[in-house]
C-alpha cells in the first residue's frame, strides 16, 4: 500500500467517524484544522484505523502524533 492509498482510506474513516461530508487531509493537517476532531474523537479514529489496517498502536504513539503526515508515516511503518 502506498501513501495515496492510505490517504484514501483515512479520508473515508475520518468522514465516517467525524460525521463530515467533505474533508481534505494533507501531511500538515492537525486536529485544530478539522471540526470535531477532539481528543475523544481521536480515540475513536485510532480504533477505526486499527480495525481497517489490522494492527495496534501503542498509547505512546497515540499521544505523540502531531499531524496527519506523521499518522500516515506510522501506518506505513506498521503495515510493512
Amino acid at each position, binding site marked *: 500500500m502506498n501513501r495515496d492509498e492510505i490517504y484514501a482510506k483515512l479520508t473515508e474513516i475520518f468522514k465516517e467517524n467525524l460525521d463530515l461530508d467533505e474533508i481534505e487531509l494533507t501531511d500538515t493537517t492537525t486536529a485544530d484544522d478539522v471540526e470535531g476532531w477532539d*481528543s*475523544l474523537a481521536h*480515540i*475513536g479514529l485510532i*480504533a477505526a484505523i486499527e480495525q481497517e489496517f489490522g494492527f495496534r498502536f501503542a*498509547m*505512546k504513539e497515540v*499521544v505523540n502524533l502531531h499531524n496527519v503526515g506523521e499518522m500516515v508515516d506510522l501506518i506505513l511503518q506498521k503495515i510493512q
Partner: protein
Amino acid sequence: MVFSSVLFLTMFLPIVLGLYFLAQEKMRNAVLLTASLIFYAWGEPKAVIVMVALIVLSYVVGLGIEKFPKYSKCILTFGILSNLSALIYYKYWMFLLENINLCYSPPPISVIPKIALPIGISFYVFQILSYLIDLYRGQVAAQRNLASLATYVSLFPQLVAGPIVRYETIEKDIQNRSVRYEQVYQGLRRFVIGLAKKVLIADQMAFVADTVFNSPVKEIPTLFAWVGALAYTLQIYYDFSGYSDMAIGLGRVFNFKFLENFNYPYISKSISEYWRRWHISMGSWFRDYLFLPLSRALSLSKTYAALSRKIGRKRTNIFLTAVALLVTWFIIGFWHGAGWSFIVYGLYNGFFIFVEILTGWNKESKSPFVNLICHLYTILVFIIGFVIFRSDTLDYAWQYIKTMFGDSNAPLNSFYKATEFLTYSNAMIFIIGCILSTPLLARWYSKYEGTKIDAVVMLVLFIVAYVFAITSTFSPFIYFRF
C-alpha cells in the same frame, strides 16, 4: 504560609527575591529549593518528609524508566502506585474507614486513626505523575539531578494549590534560565492583580457567602439563597484564579513560564467549554492521564469489539464515552476532597458533559438568541454545582437547592436583620466582580499595559490590596484544603 499574609509579603518574598538575584546562576535552584522547603515546612514540618520521600523515590523511578526500557511499564506502574498510595492514605483513608463503618452494624473498625492531610499533596503528586508518565511516553527526558527535580516538584509559587505544572512545561527552564527584569516586572504585576482579586473581591464575597451558608437552611429566604450562591460563585472564582495569578506571576519573576489556569470560565456557553476554561491544568491533566488512556483501554477490550459488531461502532462509542466520563468525573470529584458532596459534584458535571456530547450541544451557533439560552443554561448549572461544592453535607445541598427554587417560608426581613451583610460596598464589589469575570474591561484596558499609567494603577492596587490584607481577618485560600 499564605501569599496574602503579612509574613509572606514583607519577609519571605523580599528575602527570597534578594537572595535569588544576588546568587550566582548555578546557585539559583538551590535558593529556590531551600526557600520552597522552608515555605512548605512553615505550617507543618512533618509534611515535608512525605514530600521529600516521594520526590526521591520518583527520581529513582524516573532514572529506572529511562535506563531499562524493557521493564519501563513495570517501573512506571510501581512509581504510580507508590505515589497514589501516599495520596490515598493521607487523603482518603479516614473517609474509607468511616464509610466501611457505616455499611455494617456493629461497625467493624473500632478506632479510626486521625490522619492530617499534608497540604498540597493532591497537587504535587499529580505533578510527579505527569513527569513519570510523560517520561514513559517519551515526551521528556529523565532528570538526572535530584535537586532540579525537587525544585520542580516543590517550587513554592505553585506548591500548595497549583496550577499543576507539567514537567514538560519547565523542562528547559529548570536547567537554564536567565534573570530578565522585564519578566520580573511582568511577574510582580501579575502577582499584584492576583492579590487584589483575592483580598478585594474574594474575601469580601466570602463574608456574604459564609453568612448565608452557615445559617440553618430553614431560615434562609429564597432571595438570599440566591445571593449566597452568587456570592460564593464570585468568591471561588476570584479566590482560585487570584491564587493562580499570583503563582503564575511568581513563576514569571523567576523566569518560569507556567501555562494559564483560567480563561474567563463564566462566559462559557456549555459545561464542556466551562471545564476547558476553569482550572485548566487540572482538567487537561485528567483528560491526558486518565480519560484518554481509559477510553483507549476500553476501545481495546473484547466487549467493545463484540458490542460494535452488534450495534455498530457509533453507538458503541457513546457507551464507551459514558463509561469513561463516569469514571473520570467520579475521580475528579473525589480528587477535590474525601466527601460525598465532592463525588456528587464531579458526577453532576460529568452528566451535563455527557448530555452535551450526545446532543451535539458544543457546535457553535450563530443565532444570538440560542447563544443567550446556552449561556444562561451554563451559568445555572455551574451555580447549582457550586452549591453542592460548598455544602458540608449532601442533605444540606439538597435543602439549599430546594430553597433556591422557592421551597422556603423564611421571612425576608428577619433573616436580613439578623445578618445585616448586605452593604453598599458589598453590592458594588458584587457588580465589579461580575463585570471583571468577562474579558470586556481587560480588553479595553490592554492598551495601557506597559505605560506609566499602568505602573501607577498597579502601585495603587498593591497599596490598597496590602492594606486590606493586613487589616482583614485571616482567610486561607479555598483550594488549600485539597
